């Protein structure tokens, strides 16, 4: 038998949606975090409120890898509906925990794994009075069982319960009772396992926080000055707007004794987009949050904002494709949708966060980009970032003044007037493609103008003249080129002489980090680039040019980022090998490693000439 690893463990809890397991899993995850062990969690949940299967994976990693792990060491088999499949997901030598209140059916036995049973049902029946709560408390028993088996101190669990349910001592007590029952039961049985031990690491997670990207982005948007927020519920973005609803009254000081923000649940995404275009036009920092289906509905207004040059922010949490089925699974499949949203020629700025701090930071700065470039700005998140709990460095605020761009107040216009300068709303006065703007409420006689979509000249007068139209199109494109110099630069790690590059973006960051270490261990050294924005910056271009082979990791079927790269830099096209993961699950390092080795093998003769 193997010797147990220290702090290296991947637990999968299989339950039914709506059975209360979210709370148990949370406690388990936070307990491991509190022990100081680097850890991450992935919630694979259905589009359903009650009854469909859900899996929650908790990974403890001594080395600090936070992506989803390929192998499951321990399966908590608490969902009869999926048990037959679940038993085969555990690695050989792994462990299956189950409720032995009733005997285990023969078809749920397999070889090569250890089984440990405990009578969760019977225990809660004894401990908890009959109530709808009882079924939920059953899930607390496996927390205790795992705690005993892997060495999570009950004191730590108590502390987590207190943090979580601080003001409800009765809830703490009843949960603790059930957890302890699981713990004591296995203790009396002298159950043992040989897979792993969790050991406290003093100061291990000291100073770290646990949060979700949606929370981080919500707080970021508040710090960024969002004042008109219009949204329509959709998973996985709802919790972003709901976090704003929670934090806004707590963070924003009132003015004139009243609110400094309007947060509106609109009637649909068409309305939320229309509202923020109206609000952005009228000078507020306006935003919406949604995911792919919402972006589809918002398309027309996005184009209007692009052509009318109205600042507005779209925080997008990507998920699976249309309609029912995969809304609760993660994807990066709306990159091209966002980049080219709407009709006519359009190109949009995308800020692409990859961790909690960049969710916070990019959401905050998105308003500066929108105001500076007078255009819609997208923050391209995904479900894995947005809805899973991540351990992270604390959110860090760069104290910098809001960038309001070329917005002219009445006093500035008066200076212009005195200097004999004209205000021309859509004229490229500075040669950077960015015009000056005024907002309603500015009462200077020169301020007002009439806003339209595409049919206007440099002075905002109605025009269908071909030259006027072309002027506007070309100038807006020029503005985009200017943006290239301002958007977040990629993060690059490179060593001289290494000719293979791995490129990724967003939530692929963690698995790729791990994959690179594994590749290196197997003899393949790679340089690395994390793309953090569109348009692509010069640094991205250089990195691509400098490498012979580029593995571009994306979470979509059609290699959407690769298409954008090839479009802008056709000469690197032949060097790009796409590594595509699009099954709706958070990417694992193993998948990345496997695809890269497979590609390297089959491409060997070609790469030299690429």
């Amino acid at each position, binding site marked *: 038998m193997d010797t147990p690893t220290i702090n290296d463990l991947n637990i999968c809890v299989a339950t039914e949606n709506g059975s209360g397991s979210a709370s148990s899993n949370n406690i388990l995850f*936070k307990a491991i975090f509190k022990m100081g062990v680097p850890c991450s969690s992935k919630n694979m949940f259905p589009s359903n409120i009650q009854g469909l299967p859900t899996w929650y994976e908790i990974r403890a990693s001594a080395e600090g890898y936070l992506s989803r792990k390929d192998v499951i060491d321990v399966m908590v088999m608490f969902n009869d509906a999926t048990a037959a499949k679940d038993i085969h997901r555990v690695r050989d030598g792994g462990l299956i925990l189950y409720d032995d209140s009733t005997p285990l059916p023969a078809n749920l036995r397999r070889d090569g794994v250890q089984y440990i049973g405990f009578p969760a049902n019977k225990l809660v029946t004894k401990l908890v009075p009959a109530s709808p709560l009882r079924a939920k408390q059953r899930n607390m028993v496996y927390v205790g069982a795992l705690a005993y088996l892997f060495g999570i101190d009950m004191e730590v669990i108590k502390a987590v319960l207190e*943090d*979580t349910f601080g003001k409800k001592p009765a809830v703490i007590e009843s949960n603790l009772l059930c957890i302890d029952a699981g713990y004591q039961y296995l203790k009396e049985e002298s159950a043992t396992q040989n897979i792993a031990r969790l050991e406290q690491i003093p100061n291990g997670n000291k*100073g*770290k*926080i*646990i*949060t979700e990207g949606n929370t981080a982005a919500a*707080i970021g948007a508040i*710090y*960024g*000055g969002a*004042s*008109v927020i*219009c949204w329509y519920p959709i998973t996985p973005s709802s919790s972003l707007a709901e976090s704003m609803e929670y*934090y806004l009254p707590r*963070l*924003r000081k*009132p*003015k*004139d*004794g*009243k*609110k*400094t923000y*309007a947060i509106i649940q*609109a*009637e649909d995404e*068409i*309305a939320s*987009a*229309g*509202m*923020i*275009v*109206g*609000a*952005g*036009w*009228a*000078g*507020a920092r*306006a935003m919406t949050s949604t995911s792919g289906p919402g972006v589809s509905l918002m398309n*027309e*207004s996005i184009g*209007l904002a692009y052509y*009318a040059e109205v600042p507005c922010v779209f925080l997008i949490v990507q998920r699976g494709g249309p309609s029912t089925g995969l809304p609760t699974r993660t994807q990066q499949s709306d990159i091209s949708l966002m980049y080219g949203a709407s009709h006519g020629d359009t190109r949009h700025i995308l800020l692409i966060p990859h961790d909690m701090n960049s969710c916070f930071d990019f959401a905050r700065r998105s308003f500066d980009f929108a105001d500076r470039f007078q255009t819609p700005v997208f923050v391209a998140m995904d479900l894995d970032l947005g809805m899973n709990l991540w351990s992270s460095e*604390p*959110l860090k*605020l760069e104290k910098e003044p809001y960038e309001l761009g070329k917005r002219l107040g009445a006093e500035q216009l008066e200076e212009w007037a005195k200097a004999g300068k004209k205000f021309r709303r859509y004229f490229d006065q500075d040669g950077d493609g960015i015009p000056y703007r005024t907002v*309603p*409420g500015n*009462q200077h*006689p020169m*301020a*007002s*103008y*009439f*806003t339209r979509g595409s049919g206007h000249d440099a002075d905002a007068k*109605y025009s269908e003249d071909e030259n006027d139209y072309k002027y506007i199109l070309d100038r807006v494109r020029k503005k985009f080129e200017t943006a290239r110099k301002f958007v977040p630069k990629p993060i690059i790690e490179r060593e001289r002489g290494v000719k293979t590059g791995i490129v990724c973006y967003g939530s692929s960051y963690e698995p790729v980090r791990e994959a690179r270490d594994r590749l290196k261990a197997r003899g393949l050294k790679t340089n690395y680039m994390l793309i953090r924005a569109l348009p692509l910056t010069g640094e991205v271009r250089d990195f691509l040019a400098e490498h012979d082979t580029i593995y571009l990791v994306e979470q979509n079927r059609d290699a959407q980022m690769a298409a954008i790269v090839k479009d802008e830099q056709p000469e690197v096209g032949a060097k790009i090998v796409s590594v595509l993961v699009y099954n709706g699950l958070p990417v694992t390092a193993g998948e990345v490693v496997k695809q890269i080795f497979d590609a390297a093998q089959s491409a060997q003769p070609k790469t030299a000439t690429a």
Partner: protein
Amino acid sequence: MAEAKLNRINLSEKDYEGAASTMCRGCGHDAISASVMRAYFESSIDPRKVIKLSGIGCSSKTPAYFLSQSFGFNAVHGRMSAVATGANLANHKLMPIGVSGDGDTSAIGLGNFCHMMRRNVNITYIVENNGVYGLTKGQFSATADVGSVMKGGKVNDIPAIDLAELAITLGATYVARSFSGDRKQLTPLVQGALAHSGSAILDVISPCVTFNNHEGSTKSLKYAKGHLDPIHDLDFIPPFENIDADYEEGTDHEVKLHDGSRIRLHKLGKDYDPTNKMQAITAIHAAIAEGKFLTGLIYYNPNRKEFAEELNLCDTPLSDLTQDDLQPTLEQLQQINGNLMK
């Protein structure tokens, strides 16, 4: 040359004009624009405090043809209600006027329109209702009456959406109907709408002389004129005209608006109380049954807060807030971080 007449803020009627209209000659929409300009002039409203919003259609082009000193936004088809809602939240000190068509409002934009009224967003919202899509050349709209004939001979057999009734039902707080050619009635109704705070909906029959003015159309100039059913004559009295408080002879009702102005209603037939919702809806239906257009101030509700007030927005427009107002402190972030460590 005679001096141009000036209003209380020293502006002449010319100061309320806009670019030259591009409507067909004789289009009802131009007549409405004329009443709108007149209403602003008469009420002495500063055009720089007005924002003009519209969707897409012939009607939606008209905001360019009045109040050239105001900011304007000709948005996309059917979305004016949403855009206006956002603009209103960003700066609730401004006075929004929205101009839309029957297609823009009752078809593609119906959903957003309904929700704007539910929220009672402060706006003067004029539907220039001609029963057709003018700009796309004459297709039926959702306000075409049953039995109305299209230019090509096609007869509409789907019931019309009655925008006034819809507005009353969904929460609008000032609902009127009028006719583009009835300047005497329309102008005070617009003035009242401008003075009102909340969603003021004006459904104005506005014949499309090019695509819907033929025999058989129920929105032709001739048909509309012959089937108007006014509830009352009305006068608008701005707050600055301190006429004695007594009712004039024949005044049955006086509607007091938020800003102190008043509308005096002089009955033409039966008693009519515009604050009575059920009576308003019944009257609309009775007129429809007779094939008539009920016109006048059909409904008025003084008791609802407009949306920005309901939301308790600060007096300073959100668009004028500074980083100091909007950005929480570093200490607050540290506190959040502390809570997220648990």
